[in-house]
C-alpha cells in the first residue's frame, strides 16, 4: 500500500515540475487540478477501514479541486483573454531547476525530521515540502495574477499533503472548512482578476505596485 501511495506522491511531484516548466496557463491550471485530484484520493488509500466521512471529504476535494476551481480559473482566463505567461520574473529553466533542486533536497533531508516510524518510508513529507516550495516559486516568480493563484493553490496542495500525516488526529471538519475557504477564495479571485483586467488592461501584477490618486 505504501508503494501505491509513494507512486501517487511521485506523480504529484512530477506535476509540480510540469507547472513550473510550462508557459501556457491552461497546462498550469490542469496540472494544479490533477494534483488536487490525486491528493484528494489519497485519504481513501491511507485509511484501512472506509468511513463515509472520509469518502465524503475525498469526493468533495476531488470535485472542488478537479472541477469547480479549474472551471472558475478558466472562466477568469477567458474573460481576461490571456493564455500565456510571457515574461516571468524567474525564467522557466531556472524555476524548473529550483523546483527540482528543492525536490531533491526535500528527499535527501526529510529523514532528519523527527517522524513517526510509520511515516518514515513514505514520500509524504518530502512530497509536501517540494509542493510547498513549488507554490512559493510560482507565487514569487510569475507576474500574471492567474499563475499566482495557481501557485497559491499548489502551495495549499502541499499543506494538505502535510496534513495527511495527521489524518488520524485532525477533525475532518477542518479539512472541509479549508476546502470551502479555498473555493470561495478562488471564486473571489476570479472576480478580482476581471476587475484588474478592466482597470489596467492587463493582468500584470507589477502594475499594481504603483500608487496613484
Amino acid at each position, binding site marked *: 500500500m505504501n508503494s501505491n501511495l509513494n507512486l501517487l506522491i511521485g506523480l504529484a511531484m*512530477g506535476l509540480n*515540475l510540469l507547472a513550473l*516548466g510550462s508557459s501556457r496557463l491552461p497546462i498550469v491550471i490542469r496540472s494544479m487540478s490533477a494534483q488536487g485530484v490525486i491528493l484528494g484520493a489519497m485519504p481513501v488509500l491511507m485509511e484501512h477501514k472506509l468511513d463515509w466521512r472520509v469518502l465524503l471529504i475525498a469526493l468533495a476535494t476531488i470535485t472542488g479541486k478537479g472541477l469547480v476551481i479549474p472551471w472558475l480559473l478558466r472562466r477568469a482566463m477567458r474573460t481576461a483573454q490571456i493564455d500565456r505567461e510571457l515574461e516571468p520574473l524567474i525564467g*522557466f*529553466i531556472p524555476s*524548473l*531547476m529550483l523546483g*527540482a533542486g528543492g*525536490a*531533491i533536497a526535500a*528527499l535527501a533531508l526529510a529523514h532528519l525530521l523527527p517522524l513517526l516510524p510509520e511515516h518514515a*518510508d513514505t514520500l509524504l513529507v518530502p512530497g509536501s515540502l517540494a509542493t510547498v516550495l513549488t507554490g512559493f516559486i510560482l507565487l514569487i516568480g510569475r507576474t500574471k495574477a492567474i499563475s499566482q493563484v495557481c501557485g497559491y493553490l499548489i502551495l495549499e496542495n502541499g499543506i494538505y499533503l502535510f496534513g495527511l500525516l495527521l489524518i488520524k488526529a485532525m477533525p475532518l471538519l477542518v479539512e472541509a472548512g479549508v476546502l470551502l475557504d479555498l473555493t470561495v477564495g478562488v471564486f473571489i479571485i476570479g472576480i478580482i482578476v476581471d476587475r484588474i483586467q478592466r482597470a489596467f488592461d492587463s493582468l500584470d501584477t507589477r502594475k499594481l505596485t504603483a500608487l496613484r490618486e
Partner: protein
Amino acid sequence: MISILDILLRLAFWLLLAPLLPGIINKVKAWVACRRGPPVLQLYYDLARLWQKSVVISNLASPAFIILPAMSWVALFGAAMLMPLGPAGAAFSFHGDMLLVIYLLALSRFCTAWAAMETGSAFEGMGAAREVSYAVLAEAAMVAAILSLSMQTGSVSLVTMLTPAAGAGGVLLAAGLFIVLLAENCRVPFDDPNTHLELTMIHEVMVLDHSGPPLAAILHGASIKLLLFSMLLAQAVLPLQGLSTQAAIGLIGGGVLAVTIGVGIVESLLARLAFKRVPLLLTVAFLLCLFALLVAWKGGVS
C-alpha cells in the same frame, strides 16, 4: 583468431545494419502521411553514389577537411565496439568503458564541428556552434542516465550495467534517454533533417559543403550513432537477464525497432521547436534522468 573474426562480424553488423534505421524512419513518416515514400534501402544507394563521386575542396580548407569526417567515423565505430549487443556482449569491455563511449561520442562531434568550420563559411560555423551548445545540455542528461544505471546495478561497465531492467525509474529513464536520442541525432523537435533553410538547421548546415566520400562517412556515422543510441535505450530499459539467446536478440531487435518507429511517429506528429525552447526540453530530459537516478538511489536504500 576467434576474436578477430568476432570483431570483423561486429564491424559488419554496424556497417551494414546502421543505414537501415533512417530508412525505416522515413518509411514510417511516409506511411503516416499516406505517401509511398523512399525505399527503405535509400541510404545505402545514397552512400554508394556518394562513394563514387569526387570531392570538392574549398581553397581555404586544410587537409583536416578530409581527415576529420573519417576520424569522426572511426570514433563512432570505436563507441559501437564498446556497446554490448545483448547476449553477445561487447567486443571490448573493461571497468568504466561507459566513460570512453561518452568521450568517443564527444570526439566525433568535435571532429564534425571542426570540419564544418574548415570551409570558412559563416553558416557552417553557426551550425557548429548550435550543435555543440545543445550537446552540452544533452550530455548532462546522458551522464545522469548513466549514473542512474550504474547506481542501479552497482557497476561501471556497460555489459553488466545494461543487462537488468532499469527498475522503478525505468519509465523516467526511457523518456529522458529518448529525448537525448532525438537531440543527439538531430531529429525533429530539435532539428529537421529535411529542411534546407539555413536559419533552422543544426546538423544539416554543418555538412552543406562536404561532398563525396567524406559526406558518405558523415552520413553513415550519423546512422551508426542512431543505432548506438537506440541500442543503449533498448538495453537499458528491457530486462535481459535469464533469457535465452534467441529471446534476448528478439527482444533487443523489437526494442530498437520500436524506438525507430517512435522516432518516425514523433517526427510526423510534432513540429520543430523554436530555438529558445530547445534548452527547456533538454533540461526536462536532464531532470527526468536525474529523477531516475533519485529513484535508483532511494530504491536502493529502503
